[in-house]
């Protein structure tokens, strides 16, 4: 293994994903190749149907490619059994969803525990909530929290497992401008302070300004990879 390879956390080689919809084959991803580096903030931008969620699902071990390879620490995710994939998700990946996906009848703290109880090396749940600024809301149920707060709980949940890779599917998509920026700052802080690798997918290209690299997708293909030499701070950007 050379020096460059050491920096790569996950490598995608000609990854394709085809869905069979009745008699029609839909090519959601066509031969995507990409390296994701340790500790980077990567934003994937693209319109609906560009294949970004499919790509995120493959990276996160929620789906498997129909062609190509997705290598994590030399292991091809495409060849993992469902059980091994579950272990991969459990140990390596933290997910943040657009609609938060909190369990409605568990409190904020308990929603974080849902993740931490699975992990061998978890963060303290209260610490994770404190990190997202919600220590004082730990006993509140999702219905008693604002959208931004719910998304922060979801981030704390993703964080609590202490994963290598944080995958965020439109994390600001359901939030207003101010709250969205707050959540974004939080994600940037996680990268800077904890050294986490953060992958965000969004259709909002403004978010790309805070990333180390921006990957643009269209119709299941990468059309551009752009490196930001000077990423903006979330406070500076607007949409």
């Amino acid at each position, binding site marked *: 293994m050379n020096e460059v390879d050491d920096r790569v956390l996950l490598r995608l080689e000609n990854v394709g994903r085809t869905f069979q919809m009745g008699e029609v084959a839909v090519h959601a991803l066509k031969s995507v190749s990409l390296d994701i580096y340790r500790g980077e903030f990567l934003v994937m931008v693209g319109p609906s149907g560009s294949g970004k969620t499919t790509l995120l699902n493959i990276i996160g071990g929620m789906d498997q490619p129909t062609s190509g390879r997705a290598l994590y620490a030399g292991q091809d995710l495409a060849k993992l059994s469902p059980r091994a994939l*579950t272990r991969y998700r459990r140990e390596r990946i933290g997910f943040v969803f657009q609609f938060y996906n909190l369990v409605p009848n568990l409190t904020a703290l308990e929603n974080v525990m*849902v993740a931490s109880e699975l992990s061998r090396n978890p963060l303290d749940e209260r610490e994770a909530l404190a990190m997202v600024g919600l220590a004082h809301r730990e006993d509140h149920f999702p219905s008693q929290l604002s959208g931004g707060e719910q998304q922060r709980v979801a981030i704390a949940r993703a964080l609590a497992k202490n994963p290598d890779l944080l995958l965020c599917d439109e994390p600001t998509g359901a939030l207003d401008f101010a709250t969205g920026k707050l959540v974004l700052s939080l994600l940037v802080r996680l990268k800077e302070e904890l050294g986490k690798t953060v992958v965000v997918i969004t259709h909002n290209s403004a978010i790309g300004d805070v990333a180390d690299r921006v990957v643009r997708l269209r119709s299941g293909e990468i059309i551009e990879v752009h490196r930001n030499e000077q990423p903006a701070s979330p406070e500076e950007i607007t949409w």
Partner: protein
Amino acid sequence: MIRVRVLDRKLRRDLRTAIGRLLAITGIMGLGVACYVEMASVYENLVRAKDRFYTQCRMADFSVELKKVPNSVLLELANFPEILEVRPRIQFSATVDLPGVEKLLNAQVLSLPDRQSPVINDIVLVSGSYFTDRRENEVIVHDTFARRRGLKPGDWIHVILNNRRQELFIVGTAMSSEFVYLVGPGSLAPDPENFGVLYLKQRFAEEVFDFDGARNQVVGTMIPSAREHPQPVLDRIEAFLAPYGVFSTTPRKHQPSNRYLSEELEGIATFSGILPTIFLAVAALVLNILMVRWTDQQRTIVGTLKALGYTNAQVFAHYMKFGMSVGLLAGVAGCIGGYLLAGWLTGVYGQFYEFPDLRNEVYLDKFGLGLLISLTCSSLGALHGARSVLKLQPAEAMRPKPPRQGGAILLERIPWLWSQFSFATRLALRNIFRNRFRTLAGIFATAMGTCILVTGFMMREAIHYLVDFQFDKVQRSDVDLYLKDEQSYDALLEAARLPGVDYAEPLLEVSCTFYHGPYQYRGTISGIMPGARLTIPRDDQARAIRIPTSGLVMSRKMAELLHVKTNDTVVVRPTEGLRQPQEVRVVSIADGYLGLGVYADWHYLNRLIGEADAINAIQLQIDPRPEVKLALNRELKELPALQSVHYRADIVHNLRTTVIETQSIFIGVLVFFAGVIFFCSVLNNSLVSLAERQGEVATFRVLGYTPWEVGRLFLKESLVVTAVGTVLGMPMGYWLGVWLTILYDTELFRIPVVTTPPVWISTIICSMVFTLAAHALVQWNIHRMDWLDALKVRE
């Protein structure tokens, strides 16, 4: 596997969220378990009480009814290798004349040793003492009879024994294992007010019945191997005693009280299988519907959990636990409820079956099995829903569920029919057809509920029909006088002259054994006059059967037992009189629901036993005015030759107040059970449908529908399902009813299959009422639903 405590917390809160629907299912399942625990406990309570009582009283394995045999001869029976012990005794029928009681009461008189010693068919004293040395004419009275008639130790009673009026002093009251179910002759149910047992000192009995050193019955016990197959031993006993005159031999299996009890126990055992099975099947189906809906509703949560790294097994276990919680709750509630119900039912049985210590006990094995059944049943119900989470890929679970497949339903292909339906009906029909499984489960549940209703109502009608048929059409006399010995026709003329007698008919009853090929059975031939008006054998259409001048009219049950058809010839050997076997033709078959009646022409029967004009019973039709009846009863008390007197009104009244009243309680319970099935299944289906269609309901409300109009859409669906279920359940209930009549088809009584309009009308009314009651709750849910919020719901 890591134990996920927080998921357990989610589980608890999920359970709280779905409490209404879960309770509906728990209700059905709990009733199933309760039914099982109840029936199984009652069965065990009765069996244990019986075993204790039989051991305590040293219940006989057989009895032999004799004419008159020296005691010393009977004691020789103990030398048979299969016989452990024998007790010869004296037994007679007698009438009791109580002060302040207008009519004569009937009793069976039995002898007991003068000094108390443990004997076969012993008694258990309830009050007072055993015989003393102070008087010869002491009597111990059957306890229930004594209580009902206000008799207690220290009282005197008048009894007509061997044509002589005797004054007897009550020393005690007692019960015995041979009279657990004490039924007077000619009735179905115990009538302790009018029929009792009197125990006399052996010496005194010998004296009053002129039986010095002789006995007319022997009871005994056998070694265990012979007890299983007593007939060969009984045959040898009969052969041994033949020179002295044997009327009949009775193994314990055929001892009347034991037989009623055994048949009841068999019935309980069968019922403890049927009802719980129906409940548990319905509960599992309804739970299935809820679980499928529940996991569907939680698909994003399932996706999230899987995305977080929960294994399939963990998520599956979580949802299984949700379903099995119902089983656990139903099991525990069912066990407690079943135990309490068993206490109540044991009490009801205690009114008919007399045991010294019939008590409701806790049977941990029944509880354990009840719990196991409900957990198994709930796992089966939960499996389908929980399994669906296994198939769900996390990525797929995150995406909204694709809309249900639309398309025309079958009925839409018939345009002229479809166009007849209103918009609301079309919507209801589409929902019914699209949720096929739910619809089928709903139909199954209502069919099962209907099945229980029909069976219950059929039983109610059957008992009324039976009483009417037997005591209005077949046995039509007001009073039957049974004479102590056979008498000449003159006795009839004498009876006809009694005050208040409008009409009298003679009856000659001859006990005999019937033989047909390898089959033989004991029974009684009733000789009635040509054109008799007070005993009229009838066919299954209740048409009167003419008594032939020669040959027999045999009850269907007896014909079945002997494998006899019309025009077959049977051999009849009377147990009294000449006792000559004779070949007799069976001319026709009669239907009846009590006993094993066989009828013949009175003259013909007289010839058969070598008599000319013998009678041993007289049937009377009397003037119903109370003062006339009073005069008649006064005269009857003075007649010494009476063995027993039967009043039809008493028998019918007793049946109505005991059997029919108790049966009404049972039918009430069955209707309640059916109600629970209807109510819970309709409620659950509607609530699941409502939860699924919140968006649709919200849209209707936005369009301007009132909550009542929305409710009507749901009601239409429920009514269609109920209607189809009811129509299908009716024949099922009919067949279950028929099956039960076959099950209860015994020599003692049969239940007729009656399907009069009230059966069907009551069923339809009940099923509609239960459905509307469940819908009322659904309507309330629609009223309080926050439909604006529902509009925002993402699915």
